[in-house]
């Protein structure tokens, strides 16, 4: 039985106080109703002993949902504002709707699934480290600056509505990780540091894995896994892991 919180007219700090109390009292599942822009949901849930909780959010999650997230699982039934998964370390965030700007900013671990589109600067400076390889899957499209300074991780933008990618400055300064875009993208839309190439079998295996996970989380999706995987994808990777290697006079 999940614990319940009614967030109507509850301020951000008060809501997060209650979440923390629930975590410390041993709650494993929490449902929060009537969320309307309260920020930092999931952020104040660090414990040295690594307690974990599943949180369901009904409504619109405010800025910095899951910022610095430490292994919890958060599902939002609705949209999320800016900064979802900011500097997230581990865990999972599911947004059954749209996410705002700076989605997955500097994220180092965990997975984020967004059913619809997202705003500007998604996956900016996402990075990976040993066993930690962050994953961001977006069902719709992203806006400009996707994967800027990206240093690791996997980003998949599915454009399920088939509107074609119109973002620019994709992967500017990219020096690690990989971005997969369903459909195609022009050279003029990506940064100078980015190489566009077709996907190979290894990439298709990665895509199959995360598309499956995406569809498990959003069974309402009308496109089937086979249809998605049968369509064309492009892979964006950095040309160099040292984009600034030759900048200086030594």
């Amino acid at each position, binding site marked *: 039985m999940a614990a319940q919180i009614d967030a109507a007219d509850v301020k951000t700090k008060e809501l997060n106080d209650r979440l923390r109390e629930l975590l410390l009292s041993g709650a494993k599942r929490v449902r929060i109703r009537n969320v309307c822009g309260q920020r930092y949901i999931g952020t104040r849930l660090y414990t*040295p002993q690594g307690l974990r909780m599943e949180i369901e959010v009904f409504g619109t999650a405010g800025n910095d949902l899951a*910022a610095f997230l430490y292994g919890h699982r958060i599902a939002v039934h609705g949209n999320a504002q800016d*900064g979802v998964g900011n500097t997230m370390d581990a865990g999972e965030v599911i947004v059954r709707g749209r996410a705002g700007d700076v989605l997955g900013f500097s994220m180092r671990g965990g997975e984020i699934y967004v059913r619809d589109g997202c705003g500007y*600067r998604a996956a900016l*400076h996402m990075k990976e480290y040993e066993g930690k390889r962050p994953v961001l899957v977006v069902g719709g499209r992203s806006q400009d600056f996707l994967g800027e300074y990206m240093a690791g991780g996997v980003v998949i933008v599915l454009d399920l509505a088939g509107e074609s990618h119109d973002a620019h400055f994709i992967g500017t300064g990219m020096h690690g990780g990989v971005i997969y875009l369903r459909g195609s993208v022009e050279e003029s839309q990506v940064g100078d540091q980015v190489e566009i190439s077709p996907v190979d079998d290894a990439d298709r295996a990665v895509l199959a894995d995360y598309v499956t996970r995406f569809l498990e989380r959003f069974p309402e999706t009308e496109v089937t896994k086979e249809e998605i995987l049968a369509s064309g994808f492009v892979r964006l990777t950095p040309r160099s892991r*040292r984009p*600034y290697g030759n900048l200086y006079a*030594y």
Partner: protein
Amino acid sequence: MKSFVFPEFQVIRDEEKCGQCRGCERQCAFGTHTYDPAADRLVSDDRKCAGCQRCVIFCPKDAIEVRPSPSFYRPNASWSREKIEDLKRQAETGGVLLTGCGSDKPFRIYWDHIVLNASQVTNPSLDPLREPMELRTFLGRKPDMMDISADSGEVEIRTELNPNLVVETPILFSAMSYGAISYNAFKSLATAACKSKTYFNTGEGGLPREMREEFGRCAIVQVASGRFGIDAEYLNIAQAVEIKVGQGAKPGIGGHLPGEKVSLSVAETRMIPQGTDAISPAPHHDIYSIEDLSTLITALKEATNYEKPISVKIAAVHNFAAIASGIVRAGADIIAIDGLRGGTGAAPKAIRDNVGIPTELAISSLDRRLREEGIRNRCSIISAGGIRCSSDVIKAIALGADAVYIGSAALIAMGCTLCQKCYTGKCNWGICTQDPRLSGRLNVEIASERLSNLISAWSHEIREMLGGMGINALESLRGNRDHLRGIGLYEWELDVLGIKGAGE
């Protein structure tokens, strides 16, 4: 390509004294000295010398002298040797000129134009050897008013107080990251901070896991634009979190720790793959406004359960005081203000020597601005960038700072000679390098003792100067500009500093 640049230094070896022990050869990571077995003598390549003086200090026979090379171009007030040679280096490489340490340019050092007061006859001076002198400082937000109840002798503070850092002396170690400096240098700072009851600042390179438990209690951890090494444990184990927006040595630009310095251990601490460039973008890309900054400040307060003060470090630039006011209103508990002469492990020379304003002017402007707006109590000010001695500290406090950060001074205590070659990663003093052969030269026990000695010496001197002014608590000196007078300053400078001229 043949370089047209003179050697910077001249290595002079006294052959009479030299015992061919080859110590200098082993000491120099730049490869300046080599042994010629045929002639049984050591030869030096002046071109490779960084002028760090390591071989000079460690020569058992005192046989080596390193001095600036006297070669000159035809004297020209506009085209100094430095200007000519910088230009030649760029013509030879096509690259941005890099440098290390704080700016060495002759901008006015206001500390040297300010004198302190002392008591004579009236308001007699105090003897710190027999009077208690209070240097303890609380850093963080103070309430607008205190609601206190006193019932039958029981005093209770009703106002909810914000978390504050307590330092026993107003001197903290400035942000220097593991990666920029060696593990031993980093650990020496941490050890000395804990011993001297002050704090060290991790910089943006993370806090090695094995150091967290022991040194978290005296750590300020940084969150910078690269977000390296940050997880919830890192934020929670520290005593304060600092958002690094800017740095005095390179305001407005980011940083690149080159891949060759990202060793396995640095990579683990920053949580990035070994050998990749660690790129810190110029801005935080989740902060484009004061509102965004407020979001991050609050996110960090949330992440640390409102138990830690949050500091925001900015470089002192034009109009920074108005921005700082916004930063206070955004919820920062501490503002660290880093001036023009602040140090660095690597910065483009053009930026280091041309961008920003001196910290002395910055402290005074910031303190005045926050007082005028009635929000000075909401944050503490830590001043950084060019603090060289205890009198600089006490002047900074009288100009309005709550405490100071020392960076270069701490490195000098450990052995640094400000040779400015930090960016090469070949620091012969074992400070600014990731080469285990070099960093092993820095003994943590000795280096931390040197640092603690420095803090102790300066604290004694501060007590002496305070006592001389007839003041027994640093609190009473904070922003107390009446105890300062200027010498050799223009009217506008006195106005900005908020002090009178000497004799007035």
